[in-house]
Every structure is written in structure tokens, then in C-alpha cells.
């Protein structure tokens, strides 16, 4: 049942990435449209420093960044685990790989989440 659970979350993360990455791309490249929604308060380019800082201070955007980070990490590490498993490794090594990837993923998630929260105090 564990594999079923991992696979369901893999699908859910994929759907979440589709939505959040789409949102991210839209904010970055459709700045004339989203600027009117307060996402580019200083006007001009979406990647201008003042706009980046302004977005980083928005609670909703912090949630979006952290959710995108979590979904991307899970989705990517699940795919990596699948590739490693196809090398025909034994059950003990499978468990070690799973634990290792969970540990690495959680560390990266915590690091990224701290960065996203810290950016809100810029």
C-alpha cells in the first residue's frame, strides 16, 4: 500500500505543480496583466528588485512558493527513486534509498521554506 500512497501523492504533486508553475510563469511573463492585480506594485519588469521584494512580502505568495517547492521536491525525488529502483536493487538498498531521499527532500524543503519566510522580512 505504501507504493500506492506514494504514487497518489506523486500525481497530486504533479497537478499542484501544473497549477502553481503556471501561476509563476504567468506572473513572470504576463506582468502587464498581473501587474494590475498588485503583483508588480512598482511597475515595469516582473523581475525588478522592488517587485520581487513586494511579492516576497505577500503571505499568499510565500504560501505559493513553499507549496511549489514541496510539490516539486516530492515529484522530482519520487521520479529519482523510481529510476534508482529500476536498477534492480534489493529490498535493503531500496529502504536506504527511500530514507535517504526523504531526508534530503525534507532538508531541502526546510531550507527553502526558511528562505521564503526570511524573504518576507526584506
Amino acid at each position, binding site marked *: *500500500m*505504501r*507504493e*500506492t*500512497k*506514494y*504514487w*497518489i501523492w506523486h500525481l497530486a504533486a504533479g497537478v499542484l505543480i501544473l497549477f502553481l508553475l503556471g501561476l509563476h510563469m504567468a506572473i513572470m511573463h504576463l506582468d502587464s496583466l498581473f501587474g494590475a492585480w498588485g503583483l508588480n506594485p512598482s511597475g515595469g519588469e516582473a523581475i525588478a528588485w522592488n517587485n520581487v521584494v513586494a511579492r516576497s512580502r505577500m503571505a499568499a505568495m510565500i504560501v505559493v512558493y513553499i507549496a511549489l517547492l514541496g510539490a516539486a521536491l516530492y515529484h522530482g525525488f519520487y521520479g529519482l527513486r*523510481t529510476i534508482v*529502483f*529500476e*536498477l*534492480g536493487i534489493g*529490498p535493503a538498498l*531500496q529502504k536506504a534509498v527511500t530514507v535517504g531521499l526523504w531526508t534530503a527532500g525534507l532538508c531541502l524543503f526546510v531550507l527553502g521554506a526558511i528562505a521564503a519566510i526570511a524573504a518576507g522580512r526584506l
Partner: protein
Amino acid sequence: MPETSLSNRTIDVYIRRYNPERDARPRWQRFTLAVARGMTVLDGLHRIREEQDPTVVFRYSCRMSVCGSCAMLINGRPALACNTQIADVASERLTLAPLPNFDIIKDLVPDLAPLFQKHRAVQPYIQRADMEEVEKPTGEFYQSPKELERYLQFAYCIKCGSCMAGCPTLAADPEYPGPMPLAQAYRYSADSRDSGFDERKVQAGASHGVFRCHYAGECSNVCPKGVDPARALQLMKRELVLDYLRLRRKRCPASVLRVPGEARRNPDVPAPPPYTV
């Protein structure tokens, strides 16, 4: 009926020869074969063995696409030798090799023992609480045509191993059960007479189970019986997901339909003729 020559055409047949007791590695041997109208690859192999080299080894039985014994790699594609006409696949050159993803017993004969072990592991048979009724039936298990449709195409599988040979996941991961066993796991789980899904999901949902399928679809592409194992695997994934989310509909296995004991023949319907054998 005597074979009619197409145009006195001859082709080169390259057969992959390997005797594990003698050869360090497989080698190709070339034969020249006169192709006749309607000649199958299996006919050609018999002709080569009778006229050129009696040591060529291949497996066959029914010669009519029912037993699945003669599956081999024909011009790089898994197919049944008895069901493939040479004229359809080769004009000048025909290559024959054993099915990949299996060890070779000799020449064109793959070792299918792992296939049958994996097949057995998914419990490919009807499982019910009332096994006494299965062993000593007192009637028939009722099944509607709609219920039959759910698994019928997967029941046409002849276990020839073509799908296993075409599977890229199995090529990389020998622990992966492969399309045939997993499709059969779905075939029995979808059967309205069965209640063995809880046992089969352990094997199908394991770390090397159905979720390793990349959906390359080559298993369905090469199946000589038109079965769609890739679809069965996706349906099995759906069953596992629904079961995990507790959304899978629990159903009681089909009940026994008993023959009416007091039935009388309609006098307007004539009696059947007596048995002749």
C-alpha cells in the same frame, strides 16, 4: 495442398544460435531459404531444419496461434512464428532471435520459467470464500454480459511472452513482474466471480509492481492476440488507488445460479436428438 512458389524467390535467414554449454556468446548463422506462398516463419524454420541444419532448435506446438510456444523475435519484433508469414515481414532478409528479457535455453528457445513463476505469484485463478462450490459445483456462478466485458479481452492472453519481451521496464528491472502477470492480476480482480483482490494487491502494489509501468505501450503493440495489457495495468493502478482512498466499490462475488429442479419441458419445444458420441 502443395506450396506454390511466389517467384522462385530466395531470402537470407539469419538465425541467432546459442548453446550455453558450448558457446561463450550468441552468434548469427545465415541460411538461404526458398520462400513459397503462404509460408510462415515456422514453416521456414522446419524447412531449414529438414534440409540444411537439423541442429537448429526452436519451440512450437499448436501451429495455430493458440499455444504461444513459438514466440520469438522476428526482424526485431516479438511475434508468433506460426502466425507470421515470411512474405509479410521480409523481402530479402529475415532475422530470427529468441525473445529478449529471458535467458536462452538454446538457439530460439527462451527460458519462460520466470514468466510462469511471476504469473503464479499474482494468484491467477478465481478465489472465493466458498471454495467448496468451486471444487464441487452445484450450479453456475451468475455473470452478466456486462460483467464479462470487464475482463474478457484480457482472458484471451495465451502467455506467449511477447509482451514481456517488448517491455522496457522489465528489460531494466528483472524484479518487475511484467505486463502479462499484472494484466492477469487485473483480469481476475475484475472478474465478478472473484473476491481475491486483497491478496493480489499486495503483489501488484509492491515496490516493483504495477506503478513501475512507464506506459510505453509496447506490450499492447506486440501482442499477437490483440490483448491490451497496458490498459489492464492502468486499470489495475486505478483499482489500487480507489482501494487506498476507500472508494473502491466492495462487491459480493457472483452467487450460484441453480438449475431449477422442477422444470418441465415445454411440449411445443421438440426434444433434442440423442447423443451420437
